[in-house]
């Protein structure tokens, strides 16, 4: 379990993380969202022991990263996709990590094939595209067969096929009951992938809840298709519910229970009654708009 408790990080005059507290449970895919400069990368780097917090703490299974035994076998991390020696081959990069972590060398070739870099494994990383570097980062993260993956913008530089590949990798990883904590700007992707999201802004927690709950709660509207849409609008208006009709479609901010009950009580035929869920992107923009956070 990842636990962040009252975490703060100040760089001279800038506060990157400001009293952040949240927990990420095991066996779930948790998205970590926030605008640029929200403090996501700083938080992840504190979690991984690369940045020192000003106060508070971030732990994995109740321990600081540097206190973990065999950290690579517990946590796999994908950070900057450019953190490679340009003259070293992808295979040799992984071999150095494997040697330090005590991972057998055949695992290196196995992972290079898995991430689709088997045919360029002996080429210097300087000749790799950003997407190939991301794949190499993912291979490095999986080297120790960890139970937790921490990823900072892993979709950067990936083409649509690469993004789909990454989604499949992470889903398959989580399908084994393992945990993924992933920061990303690709909100549509996160909506498809994540079970829950932690949203931060200006270093503070905005919300932490399941994606479905967040999008449904943020919208709270209902869309109805009915051959008697105008009659339904008049019925709802008598109950103080405003609605807009467009042909046979009616849209209202009222919850579906009230609309359905109103229609049934007046014998109005419905062909469709659905909750209008907002996209994660809409919710995210609403929650992180300037002045939108207490």
């Amino acid at each position: 379990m990842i636990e962040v408790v009252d975490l703060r990080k100040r760089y001279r005059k800038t506060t990157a993380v400001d009293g952040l507290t949240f927990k990420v449970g095991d066996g779930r895919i948790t998205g970590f969202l926030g605008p640029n400069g929200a403090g996501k990368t700083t938080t992840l780097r504190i979690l991984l022991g690369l940045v020192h917090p000003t106060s508070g703490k971030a732990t994995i299974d109740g321990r600081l990263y540097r206190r973990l035994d065999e950290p690579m076998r517990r946590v796999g991390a994908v950070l900057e996709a450019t953190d490679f020696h340009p003259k070293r081959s992808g295979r040799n990069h992984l071999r150095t990590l494997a040697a330090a972590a005590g991972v057998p060398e055949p695992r290196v070739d196995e992972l290079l094939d898995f991430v689709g870099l088997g045919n360029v494994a002996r080429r210097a990383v300087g000749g790799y595209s950003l997407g190939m570097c991301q794949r190499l980062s993912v291979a490095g993260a999986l080297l120790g067969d960890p139970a937790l993956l921490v990823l900072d913008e892993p979709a950067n530089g990936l083409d649509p096929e690469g993004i789909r590949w990454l989604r499949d990798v992470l889903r398959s990883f989580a399908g084994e009951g393992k945990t993924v904590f992933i920061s990303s700007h690709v909100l549509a992707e996160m909506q498809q992938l994540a079970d829950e999201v932690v949203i931060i802004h200006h270093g503070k927690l905005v919300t932490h809840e399941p994606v479905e709950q967040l999008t449904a709660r943020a919208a709270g509207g209902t869309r109805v298709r009915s051959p008697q849409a105008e009659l339904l609008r008049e019925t709802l208006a008598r109950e103080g519910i405003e609605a807009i009709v467009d042909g046979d479609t009616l849209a209202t901010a009222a919850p579906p229970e009230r609309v359905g009950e109103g229609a049934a009580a007046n014998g109005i035929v419905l062909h469709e009654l659905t909750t209008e869920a907002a996209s994660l992107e809409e919710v995210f923009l609403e929650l992180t708009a300037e002045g939108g956070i207490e």
Partner: protein
Amino acid sequence: MSRLFRAELLKIRTVRTFLWLTLGEIAVVLITVISVAASAGEIKTAEDDRGVAQIAGAALVLALIGGVIVMAGEARYGTITQTLLVTPVRERVLLVKVAVAALIGLALAVLAEALVLLVTIPGASLDFQNARLVLLGILLGAPLAGALGVGLGAVVHAQGRAIGISLAWLLIGESLAPVISDSAAKYTPGRAFGALASGERTAEDLLGMTAGGVAAATWAAVFVAAGLLAFLGRDL
């Protein structure tokens, strides 16, 4: 610890930086020693023997640069984050890098001395007995210089800047030191290592070989300690 040591050696073997460093040393030592041997003819005095053997002292400078690269090279390419994700205990990482840099220093010293001896014993009648203390001093000094380089690389963090500072100190700082204090100048890093590689038990403008060795080891320890403090406190 041994896993990390093997990984650090693998890092060195899988890029060409240290190959270039070695080739650079071979070129510098061979050109110098051949030109000295050719121009001086026979080496006649014990002082001549020591002077020729000191050509292998190039290994001290190259070991220093090697140490800087071992540490700051990782910062330059960002690979230090990967290193710390596998081994998050920074003290351990730095100490292993010190050991690796010391080993590189020793290897560079052995190579430089072998080149000097191979050319000068048959070509210019170098007396090994007269040169042996110089050679011993270089063998002891190069690992210390490598360790000092790691400390400097950890303090300065930027590889190019750290190498620039080292060379500027050796070329300019060491020359200016006697102007500030003649007696204190004997204890500067360059002169301490110079004394260790002098092969002389006492000298006028340098410490004796033993005292020079102690001063060089102290400088290496100070830089490693400062590097450790900087490395422990740095956000990456």
